[in-house]
């Protein structure tokens, strides 16, 4: 048996190795196609870290990813694969902007509260549909959430074109619905970083509190790990399925509100589902379901996302190549199972050798 300290260390080793392998694989790909990987990675990292503006942008992106990552993680802990985070984020975005545009003159604190609240409810309802169907009819939440993703996408575009405006872009929300924080904006030389960062930190703490310190979190974990034993012990599996999906969707919706009000301040027609939703899955897996881990892996993804933009101009690596490299890194994150396997094998060989001496 490993001691807790050892197992905690090796738990950290796995995500770090996954990321490193992703970078190495990306480098090999670039070499194969005749690009200089050192230049490319340098461009990516320098691009972000040499400029307060882009640091701000990376953190802004990370903020939204923290919400989608936590959203995915809680459903995952309860035993579900909520692949509909993207759609739930989108309906949250719509709800927040819609409310903000409808009551532009309300005081800031009230307008922000009801806009964000509406987004959370919208996301929760969207995920709750899948949760309820799963709880009462045993429908696969994977299929239902995938379908609801497309429903959300087309519904959003319909609402923009036919309800909120007649064009493809809504008006900007009023000052009272802005999430920007003056000193942060100044500090990062005008980036779109916003108070979503503080909300994210609070939510990370609340998530930890919920999962480890409350009876409701205990139930969600127990049902996720063994629904039969939990039912036998008197918990309601149905209730917990729905509850965890509601929280999951609510977090995605909250991410949508922060993205809508904080990043853009408006809503525009989308050609596809926002990648922030799907990258939340990778963030959650890299963070091993631990809220603090999810926060840090969000920052890594924020840096990758923003930094990839520098690879074409500064290192001559085309956009597509940059995307492939990022995808390779995500792939290795998802494949951390393989890394765990190799590590275990190495460890058992080592102990065998030691014993043989």
């Amino acid at each position, binding site marked *: *048996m490993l001691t807790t300290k050892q197992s905690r260390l090796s738990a950290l080793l796995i995500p770090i190795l996954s990321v490193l392998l992703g970078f190495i694989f990306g480098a090999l790909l670039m070499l194969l196609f005749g690009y200089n990987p050192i230049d490319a990675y340098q461009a990516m990292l320098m691009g972000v870290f040499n400029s307060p503006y882009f640091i701000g942008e990376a953190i802004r992106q990370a903020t939204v990813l923290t919400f989608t990552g936590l959203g995915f993680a809680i459903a995952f802990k309860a035993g579900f694969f909520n692949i509909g985070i993207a759609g739930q984020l989108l309906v949250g975005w719509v709800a927040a902007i819609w409310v903000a545009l409808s009551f532009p003159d309300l005081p800031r604190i009230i307008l922000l509260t009801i806009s964000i609240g509406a987004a959370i409810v919208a996301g929760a309802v969207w995920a709750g549909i899948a949760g309820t169907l799963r709880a009462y009819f045993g429908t696969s939440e994977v299929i239902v959430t995938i379908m609801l993703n497309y429903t959300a996408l087309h519904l959003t575009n319909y609402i923009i074109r036919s309800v909120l405006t007649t064009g493809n872009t809504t008006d900007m929300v009023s000052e009272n619905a802005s999430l920007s924080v003056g000193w942060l904006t100044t500090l990062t030389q005008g980036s779109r970083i916003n108070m979503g960062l503080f909300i994210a930190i609070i939510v990370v703490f609340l998530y930890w509190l919920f999962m480890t310190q*409350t*009876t409701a979190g*205990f139930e969600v974990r127990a049902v996720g790990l063994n629904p039969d*034993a939990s039912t036998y012990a008197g918990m309601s599996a149905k209730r917990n399925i729905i509850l965890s999906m509601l929280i999951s969707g609510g977090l995605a919706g909250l991410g949508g509100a922060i993205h809508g009000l904080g990043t853009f301040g408006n809503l525009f027609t989308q050609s596809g589902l926002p990648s922030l939703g799907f990258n939340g899955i990778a963030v959650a897996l890299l963070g091993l379901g631990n809220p603090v881990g999810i926060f840090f892996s969000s920052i890594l993804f924020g840096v990758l996302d923003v930094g990839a933009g520098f690879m074409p101009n500064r290192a001559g690596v085309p956009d597509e190549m940059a995307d492939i490299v990022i995808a390779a890194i995500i792939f290795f994150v998802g494949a951390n199972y393989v890394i765990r396997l190799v590590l275990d094998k190495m460890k058992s060989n080592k102990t065998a050798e030691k014993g043989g001496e």
Partner: protein
Amino acid sequence: MAQTERVIEMKGITKRFGEFKANDNINLNVEKGEIHALLGENGAGKSTLMNILSGLLEPTSGEIYVNGKKAKIDSPEKANQLGIGMVHQHFMLVDKFTVAENIMLGKEKHNYGFMDDEGAEKDVKDLSDRYGLTVDPSARIEDISVGMQQRAEILKTLFRGADILIFDEPTGVLTPQEIDELMDIMKKLTDEGKSIILITHKLDEIKKVADRCTVIRRGQSIDTVNVKNTSQQELADMMVGRSVSFKVDKIASVPQGPVLEIKNLTVKESRGLEAVKNIDLEVKAGEVLGIAGIDGNGQSELIQAITGLTKAESGTIKLDGKDITGEKPREVTETGLGHIPEDRHRHGLVLPMKLEENMTLQQYYQKPFSKNGLLNHGKIKEFAKKLIEEFDVRTQSEESTAASLSGGNQQKAIIAREISRNPALLIAAQPTRGLDVGAIEYIHKRLIEQRDNGKAVLLMSYELDEVMNVSDRIAVMYDGKIVAIVRADETSENELGLLMAGVSLEKAKKELAGKDIKAGTAGAAGAAGNAENDGKERATVANDETE
């Protein structure tokens, strides 16, 4: 001295997991053509040792010789090449494939890439004829009995050229008839020159088939003995490390008022058929009521209805005077029910969770374990520590996962949790399945203790010994009905056997009166030690009885 050939020699095998020594300097010698039993309690280190031999684990130190040559077995394939094959406890078979396909798996017979089904089935047929392992090569695994599936598993290892077969707790899932057949097969295999290692904690099986037996206790090999010259009692004492009693010590029960009252209960199973048919049953305070019956005669459904896991179709269930028909598990638990479930992994524990969390699985929402929805980890830990101490649950700490405990200790943890709530009724379903004699003795003692404290105990078991030893009264279930309720001290194994087969009590008594002489003959044949005759004789008796 007659030189026997050693096919396996394991010398000074030690395997550490961190601080913990699962195997500590174990020695094991297996001779050609023998059945060598490996006896030990749950968690003694038998599986670790066999995993080392079959290449799944590497020893920390020690040497292995196969057929006299030093071998490094670092993968299951390597074990295969050396002729070591494992017949797993949980079969490694593909349900949707046929017997022949399963046996060939990974070594499929083909003509230019096309599957040669006929050739494969013929090969399997030849192999099964040679060893007397009757199977239907073209039947699908999901359609055949468990005993048949096990034969397919044995054939699979033989097909891969195994000369040394490891049987891992092979009889746990078999019916008595299938067990006898398996014993014959094992004898036949050794006659053909194969060697067998039999992992078990069932002493009667060792007495029946094994030639020699190595006893393992707490990771150490205690001794290797000749089975013929060693009694079951001696084997049990060696295994546990102290004197064990097979008989349950108990005083006469003093039953009081009814705790569980069931009237006209009908329960349907998942496919919508009636599994429990209009049953009346009463369990009194201060008594153990046993439910005997062959698996699948409505016992599980009856218990699920009482515990609230399944809704009753009709009828009423009263617990401690309160009507609990149709109540949810939580309400039933709160009314005063403790339940040791039949399947401890599926229903009893959340294996990946900490032991302390499992200990409070039903009470986490109550004071003092939580307040206003916030858990009190300190109180939970304190409570778990107390139970671990009181019930002697062997674990590294209360923070270890339930999965890290051995089967016997997992069961002790469940029993600790259920008894600690001091329930008016304790339902124990198959409470000692898969456990060794030491743990069985302990669990039986605890059940009797509950009874002596004036609680009601409902014991459901497929093991006749257990039902007869622990219960005060025995209800026999057959085809969803209770065919008879008898007193444990007034019935016999034969009478129960007939009742379980659906014979009425009156008829059973009459039949047994006329059978006494014949049963005596069968017993004598068994004592003579001729296993083949013994089996046949008993088969005829069984046939007579069911007619």
